[in-house]
């Protein structure tokens, strides 16, 4: 049995999300965590794209003289594509902020271990 392109993409998206979650939660190195977070984000983007994939669909641009009903039945749904573009931009900005903070903290601690940098900060307020 041949697996459809859509199903294959869905599996790939699911795999990316699970691998990303694993890296973000269990890996100590912040850079590897960030790569994991990026995997989650790209997995979700792939998921959006492949959910509304249309086998043999046409570009969703209504040309002059085109039959509206035929167009509505055959054109690919353009909304998810627009959403993915926005999502990519948001992801890039978030990633930039995380990496900038990581660089700053690496200079401060000389380490990329999340355990060393982040986990020793929860206390009951007696910081001084």
């Amino acid at each position, binding site marked *: 049995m041949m697996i459809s392109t859509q199903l294959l993409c869905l599996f790939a998206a699911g795999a990316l999300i699970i691998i990303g979650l694993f890296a973000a939660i269990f890996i100590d190195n912040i850079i590897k965590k960030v790569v994991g977070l990026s995997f989650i984000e790209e997995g979700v983007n792939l998921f959006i794209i492949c959910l509304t994939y249309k086998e043999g669909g046409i570009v969703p641009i209504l040309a002059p003289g085109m039959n*509206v009903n035929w167009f509505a*039945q055959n054109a690919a749904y353009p909304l998810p594509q627009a959403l993915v573009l926005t999502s990519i931009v948001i992801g890039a900005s978030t990633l930039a*902020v*995380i990496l900038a*903070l990581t660089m700053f903290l690496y200079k401060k601690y000389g380490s990329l271990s999340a355990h060393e940098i982040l986990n020793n900060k929860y206390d009951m307020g007696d910081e001084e």
Partner: protein
Amino acid sequence: MNYLIPLMVIFPIFAALLINLFGKHNKTIKILSFIVAIILPLITLFASYGLHFFGGHKPLIDTNITGLPTYITSTNLYSMHPAITYSFTPLTKVFIFIMCIIVFLSVFSYLTSEKKASGSFLFLVFMGTAAVSAMILSDDLFNMYVFFEIAALVQTGIVIASKAEDNYETALKYMILGSIGGPMLLLGITILLAITGSVNITDIAIIISTVLIKSPISKAVVLFSFALILFGWLYASGFPPFHVIKSSLYSKSESYGSSILQAMSLLTLVAFLIAMARMFYLINIFNGAILIVSIIAMILGVSMAVMQTDFRRMIAYLSVGELGFVGLGFGLGTKFSMTAGLFQGINEMIVTALLFLGLGSVVYLTNTSNIRKLGGLISKSESMAIMVLLGGFAMAGVPPFNGFRSKFMIIHAALLAGYPEVAVIAILISIATFFVFVKALHGIYLKPQPNDLEFVHDSIPKSVIFSVAVLTIMCLILGLYPEIVTVPISQALGGLII
């Protein structure tokens, strides 16, 4: 078309960009920020209720297009929204107006207390105001997600812009968690898009309630998307398991920033809670899930607050716990309880801003927020001590303040809905909150002043006293005349959900 509705979002964004442009000119950004902070509540006040369709794309009604999928044509969906829609109702007006008042008071206190204003901080404040206003106005899930991410970045930025110790660590932690919470929310929205063909909340709510709810398979898919959206909502609101990071975020910011941050979190919570209630109220576990999460937040918030010796963290935990009351109102699932929950949300926004600004003056005077190192500060400013005490009473639910009114309504609603045990928990949490405040205020203001306590400033800026006084008066007015907000909330809820 009411152009003041999109202006509530566009104007602060434009102002933020302008302030960023003149970032190095101290006087210019101070004057500009002050003017913008005054105009923001006025726009909300003068805008008339209604809908705004972006690009002028009104809902498609009775189209002759036969190619629409059957799950749309076979439903009661008489119209479909092709563009982003903003809906301005009495409910959104109350929330955005209170938010703008808090922004004005915080910005006013900041501008008059600091010699050199930070352009970045003011940029973030106005961007955040625009983001949360858009979230509560929007009838479009993806638009809400975009502004949810902007709000998360703004909150991180406000913490980075502060001078608090370990602020970068807190910001990174928040961003990492946000990079999990955000995509999960987006995944939930995508699943809804896939099964309904729309990201408009009204369209989704109609399709779910008329078609999808009838089939067990599609109901399971809707349930899965609810779980994902709930996860994103927990992150944005600071509910468990994100309560610790949210409290850290509040405590690592300047007092002006904290008062705005908590208002932003609350508006995000309310916006997504209303959206979820509209879409998923027919799902059996919706009310139960919100109820359980809210009770856990209340218990964890107050029990973590009891253990704090840093009063900023203490208020931060208490404010997270108080958010549980808002969720409780929705979890009980009646119109009366939801009105009570939203009323509690408004009160929470005002009271927490009061406490952050009021107790921020202690940090301004002594440069410490450790209760063990403080004492005898009532001699420095009696009026501020009294107002903070009244704010504490309002949060704990002591009459005749607003907190008493909303908590009383929630407890009454719990009894009416047949949940006496929830009412008992709410009363116990209120008592514990009162205890925490008495302990903290005694430590800060009443116990003898330690010999080694040094003062950085001699007196509290008058602008801060003015801001806290305005917020105290608001607490009192809403306590004496709650119908000012409960009537519009109740009316708006009737049209939205019930």
